[in-house]
């Protein structure tokens, strides 16, 4: 665990910056994925959850029982017909599961033994223009990988971003190591960043860890930055804040590093190959390691391959700070490159609020002793360690929040829905994940990420 006070930003030469973060917190957990790669058994079903795509209302183009190929559209956005969401595998659409108010919760595809791919055709990047690339991304299901700030939603294809950001460094707890998962994918990454560089007048900024060998090291058409420091140094939001923060009226796009591989493969081969190397991690996993699988696969295919230590667990698609809770029979999220399994914490603890604590992480020293063991790895469960309260403490969020924004003040502005204040305090620059650490250390157990998400949604609705 690592806590600091001030941040520095050293400019070595005009284009590239070294980013050093001091404010933050590395949450060290047990169950880090071992750097061995296995092929996950072929999943019987695949599922797409429309809730992965915030604010997208799906319009399904197929009926239950229809066949589709990998890359065939499953649904498009009701607001933008061109924005297609495609099937990761070939198979049969078996179920459209709806929840309250007939909102589609999951679209389930029963997979064939072998994938048949829809052919989109290769794109010659030396000649292709922005429009060609855009329309290919839209029709072939790669556009959803491009997100935008402000608002942290799928990018609006009509805008031209001032820059595009990719984080090639993961600092979240137990996160999949990009140096490992992207090894040997240089050709795909190069194609993807070259294509992206044509969509912006600015740069494609890629940040990598200051140590280790990254597949991005040798790529062209990018501006490379080296980041160091505790989490959230690997969050793309932190990097945007240090390199080129978003101002009112401006847009930047962000793409996850693992999605560049899928984008690159589409450009090079003309196929939408949803293959992804994911980390299976967490203290409840017997043999945490890396698996080769596909977007939307049943997580049980690899979770039970690796084995679990206990029954009462929470399975998370994503990391422990920002991931989505899924059932053990659930499916890998569209944007996730890891699955974390940790113990549920649905038990009482006798005098848990005042006895000395050695087995949990704490930013304070209030009879909590994690500060004594900065390298120790912890087995945290999902207990909130206290009840929801009004905001009381001040000054503690700032220690783990590297952006030049007042975290408590912007949260309160969101809670009282003061749009002017939200805008003035920097709402265009933030995404919910930027508030994961302040949420983690919050003594009042306030749902920071939810508060920020609601605030952003309100801005979209009222400012647009």
């Amino acid at each position, binding site marked *: 665990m690592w806590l600091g006070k001030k941040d520095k930003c050293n400019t070595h030469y005009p284009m590239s910056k070294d980013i050093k973060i001091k404010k933050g917190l590395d949450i060290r957990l047990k169950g880090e994925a071992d750097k061995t790669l296995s092929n996950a058994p072929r999943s019987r079903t695949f599922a797409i959850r429309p809730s992965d795509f915030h604010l997208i209302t799906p319009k399904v183009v197929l009926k239950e029982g229809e066949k589709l190929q990998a890359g065939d559209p499953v649904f498009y956005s009701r607001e933008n017909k061109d924005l297609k969401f495609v099937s990761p595998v070939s198979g049969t659409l078996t179920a459209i599961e709806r929840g309250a108010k007939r909102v589609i919760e999951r679209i389930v595809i029963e997979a064939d033994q072998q994938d048949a791919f829809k052919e989109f055709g290769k794109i010659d990047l030396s000649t292709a223009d922005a429009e060609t690339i855009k329309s290919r991304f839209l029709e072939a299901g790669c556009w959803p990988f491009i997100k935008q700030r402000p608002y942290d939603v799928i990018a609006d294809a009509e805008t031209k971003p001032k820059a595009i950001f990719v984080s090639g460094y993961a600092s979240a707890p137990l996160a999949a190591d990009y140096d490992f998962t992207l090894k040997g994918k240089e050709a795909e990454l190069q194609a993807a960043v070259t294509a992206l560089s044509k969509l912006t007048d600015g740069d494609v900024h890629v940040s990598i860890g200051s140590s280790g060998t990254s597949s991005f090291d040798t790529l062209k058409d990018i501006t490379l930055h080296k980041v160091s420091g505790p989490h959230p140094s690997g969050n793309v939001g932190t990097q945007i804040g240090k390199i080129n923060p978003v101002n009112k009226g401006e847009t930047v796009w962000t793409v996850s590093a693992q999605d560049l591989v899928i984008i690159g493969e589409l450009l090079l081969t003309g196929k939408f190959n949803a293959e992804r190397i994911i980390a299976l991690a967490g203290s409840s996993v017997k043999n945490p390691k890396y698996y080769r699988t596909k977007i939307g696969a049943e997580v049980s295919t690899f979770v039970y391959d690796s084995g679990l230590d206990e029954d009462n667990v929470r399975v998370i698609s994503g990391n422990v700070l920002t991931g989505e809770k899924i059932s053990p029979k659930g499916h890998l999220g569209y944007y996730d490159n890891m699955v974390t399994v*940790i113990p549920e914490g649905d038990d009482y603890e006798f005098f848990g609020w005042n006895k000395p604590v050695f087995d949990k992480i704490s930013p304070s020293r209030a009879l909590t002793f994690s500060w004594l063991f900065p390298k120790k790895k912890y087995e945290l469960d999902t207990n909130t360690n206290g009840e929801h309260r009004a905001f009381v403490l001040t000054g503690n969020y700032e220690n783990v929040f590297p952006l030049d924004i007042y975290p408590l003040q912007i949260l309160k502005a969101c809670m009282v829905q003061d749009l002017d204040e939200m805008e003035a305090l920097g709402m265009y620059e933030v995404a919910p994940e930027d508030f994961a650490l302040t949420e983690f250390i919050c003594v009042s157990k306030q749902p920071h990420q939810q508060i920020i998400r609601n605030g952003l949604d309100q801005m979209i609705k009222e400012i647009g």
Partner: protein
Amino acid sequence: MGLKQKLHTLKEKYRGKKMAPAFNALHTFLYLPNETTHSGSHVRAADDLKRTMNTVIMALIPCLIFGMFNAGYQTNLQTDPEITQAMGLFSGEFWNWSNFVIGFWKVLPLVIVSYGVGLAVEFLFAVIKGHEVEEGYLVTGMLVPLIVPIDIPLWMLVVAVIFGVVIGKEVFGGTGMNILNPALTIRAFLFFAYPTWMSGDKVWVHGAVETAGKPDAISGETILGSLAQNNEIGYSVMDMFLGFIPGSVGETSTLLILLGALFLIYTKIGSWRIMLSTVLGALAMGLIFNGVVSAGWIDSSSKFFGLMNTEFWHHLIIGGFAFGAVYMATDPVTASQTNKGKWIYGFLIGFISILIRVFNPAYPEGVMLAILLMNVFAPTIDHYVVQGNVKKRMKRIKVKTA
């Protein structure tokens, strides 16, 4: 079926009922609840509000125990010819059973009344408004007995606590929403509602009120009271630092308050910025007054002379200054909430404390009013600090468009 299971069954039974908050408040004292994360981060840090408040209470306990000994000592010193002035920190004249017993039976009712009445009001509001009982009063309830005079009638304390909790906190929406420090609201209510009782030279030593006017009358005067009347104080600096002086129950021992401050800073619960800047503010004002005296603008006939001529750093160890700076000014809800703002807020508290102390000889305890005043201005200070950040953001756009 263990206790854990029984309580769990009860909790489920009362879920959603009117009395649920009251039951849960007691239940969560025994057991950290079984609540799990539902949105956002799936894991959370170990600290909750109870633990935080508990840490502050731990920092206050030494002051409370010292206050009990001191209450007895101050009385015995004047009534019992056997007792002589305590010499040194571990003096047997101070730390003895007879002192403790007197003090214990005087202070314990204050603690019971403070917690009993205050928590009753909190529970009542929680049940009426249907929210959980918040922990804010745990600290307030401990602060109150420490900042009142030893001989305060209990009924007065009851009235003040009810006023303080209802008007000072609940009408604003409870813990976290209040503008004024609740403990100081209670103290200020006592001061303005019962001024003849709360000021003057009687109530600060147990027995002084009852014996007033009689031949065996004992003095209950504090150092600040003497200074305000330009009298000699008759206590050594060491006495003042260690706390062998009359005053409110828990405020006298600067040494223990200093240890409490270090504990709060070390545990990262108390704001060192506020504590340090408050001290700096007080020293600055003290130096200014010392300068006024040495420049000869004021002579010993002035009614302000006694306090103005007090050596600047002595202000830190007399009266309630140290206690206020460490335990009251740092209340995170009512203080400035930005780190820069905390420096300004603290400095002004120190500065104004000494200002009031010197210019208001009728009630020379300035720290209470200074903190309440700055509580009111804290949001304004924060506003300007945050505006700095907002302006920086605006400038970024201008650079772009220019």
